[in-house]
């Protein structure tokens, strides 16, 4: 009997009522809707999956947190980006170009190799990668170990999931375009439950990239005040 429970525990099929959540250090993503959903923002280390179409604002969503995380003059690394990152945009956002590396490997193998090396090197804060092909469980595990070693995090950006199995990401987000910004959904999060689609308003960071006539609609869209819950 005991053996059975042990076995189930190892398989992570038993839920403990007295289980305490480990403390995860997070930093604000710069969007309060996302912060409240993720209880503080993106974790400082880990493998994060972003499922999104290209050009709806997926990178713009990450930029504020990328900037905020880098307090020690470490590298931001772009691996196999779909097109060349624009230096003008980065500078405008406040990035130091001397700390940005742009790597274009040709094969999936090389993308993963480069990502792992960068993550564990200890001189990178964030790695953004755009893999070409389906990923495997062991590849994500390796990236996670590398993240822990180098105290860094990686964002894996892709258009859709191609694997049939569930991968051990620390966080997986799906993004959809919305007139006032983005609609996001937490597919999977460690030590927490998934969510439904919720709106992220990008008006504050990107006033030009929001449809103007949506302002009126936004009034009807009641957004919870981030501290409201605590006050009650």
């Amino acid at each position, binding site marked *: 009997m005991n053996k059975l429970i042990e076995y189930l525990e190892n398989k992570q099929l038993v839920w403990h009522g007295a289980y305490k959540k480990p403390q995860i250090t997070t930093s604000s993503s710069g969007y309060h809707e996302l912060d409240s959903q993720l209880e503080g923002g993106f974790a400082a280390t880990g493998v994060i999956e972003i499922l999104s179409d290209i050009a709806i604002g997926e990178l713009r969503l990450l930029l504020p947190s990328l900037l905020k995380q880098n307090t020690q003059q470490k590298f931001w690394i772009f691996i196999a980006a779909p097109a*060349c990152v624009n*230096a003008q945009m980065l500078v405008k956002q406040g990035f130091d170009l001397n700390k940005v590396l*742009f790597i274009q490997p040709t094969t999936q193998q090389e993308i993963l190799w480069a990502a792992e*090396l960068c993550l564990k090197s*200890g001189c990178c804060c964030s790695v953004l990668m755009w893999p070409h092909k389906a990923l495997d469980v062991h590849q994500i595990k390796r990236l996670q170990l590398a993240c822990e070693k180098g105290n860094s995090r990686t964002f894996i950006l892709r258009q859709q999931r191609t694997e049939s199995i569930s991968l051990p990401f620390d966080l997986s987000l799906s993004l959809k375009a919305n007139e006032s910004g983005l609609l996001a959904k937490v597919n999977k999060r460690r030590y927490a439950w998934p969510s439904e689609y919720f709106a992220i308003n990008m008006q504050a960071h990107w006033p030009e990239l929001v449809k103007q006539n949506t302002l009126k609609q936004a009034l009807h869209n009641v957004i919870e005040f981030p501290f409201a819950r605590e006050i009650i």
Partner: protein
Amino acid sequence: MVLWLYVHFPALQLDSLFCDGHYPVAIVNRQKGELLQVNKEARQQGIRIGMGLGSAAALCADLQVFPYDQKLEKQRLQRIAQWLYLFTADIALDPPNGLFIRVSHMLSLYTSVTHFWQTLQDALQRVQVGYQYAFAYSPSAAKLLAGHAINQLTDDASVIQKQIALCDLSKTPLSVKLQDKLKRIGIHKVGDLLQLALPDIAKRFDIELVTFVGQLNGQLKQVLEFYHPPEQFKHHLELLFEVSNVSVLDKPLYKIYVLLQRFLNLRGKLAQTLLIELHLRDEASQFVKVTAGQGEASADKWLALSKLTLESVRLNAPVVALTLEAQSLINHAFERNDLFAGQQNSMSPQELIAQLQAKLGDKQVTQLQLVDDHRPELCSRLCPPDFSVTPKGYEHKLVPALRPSFLLAQAQPLHEKVEILHGPERINTGWWDQHVVIRDYFIARTEQGRWLWIYRTPQQNWYVHGLFS
């Protein structure tokens, strides 16, 4: 009188072969077909120097035979001199396999001849080459004695004189004809020759013998050109086997890297680029370049880098030899790290970039640079990682209004229905350098909610140039 030391390397080519296991190996003279150098394993099988190739092969069937190459020995001698130069100043090369070393002048640095020789012996041991040596009061006397494998440390003139007198005429550099002539008048040893007065010799024999005797007893000066070391590292290594698998090259390469490390550490330098020449059988050599952006000296680090680079190398033919050349040496600038700065990086940024470049290729690892130009495709540029491409502060002036996150390498024709939300922003420039740009830029949103940076040409053609990812 000036004390000289001569070091003779009897099996220089043999000792510089890369030998992994224990095989009988011999170096053979191609013209005469006789053995010049044999190793220990071959000697145990009964093979001797001077034997014909046929009888040697009869004695030992699996004897490895290499043709004698004087050029190779000369190169090796150069490197030995380069190494010894760190310990003693006056070295003259005696190609293909000997070194003259002037001892007297070095004695003000070393307390005694014994001390001097101990230091030199240590250094010679590290070269891993067999040698014979002798001390004498003239260069040619030292050479003559070294040829007899005297191997005795002494600066006593009378002892040296006795040893010279016992030397056989056949070991002298005199021509056979001259030796015969001397034998006919009853001179068999060098000692007999030295008893004759120099003017008498001059009367009966030609100038060759006069210079020989004169140089031997120090009456005539021998002109020697002293060695000056070049400030570069180049090493050639013959492989015992042909290697067709790249990963096997790691071991011999590491051997060279250790030498490189010693070379660099002694000079306080770092190497930025290594050029590895793979000499192929029956094919032109293949070149592999290994770079470490900010310089590196450690053998282990170089090995790791070259492993990554060699992974992507395909050999056209088996490798028979290696040449490694260190290019662009820089001074070692020591980095200061804060002892209390919390978690230390396991790798420096330079190391990371060097490793990435070694595996992926130089062009795949880049940095972004901002250039003072209004044309978007020229303004943001990729450049090799340098860390000082864009000075701070300067860049903020160059950034106009809203710009997309991604720039497409080639503008694509616009095919979908879009809603224009901002614009136009006209860019009309470049008339001076054959790259004219007249465009009206707009920010547009597609029905799927994608934000595009599009432009219109004067011909009313629409293109997508950037993505607001």
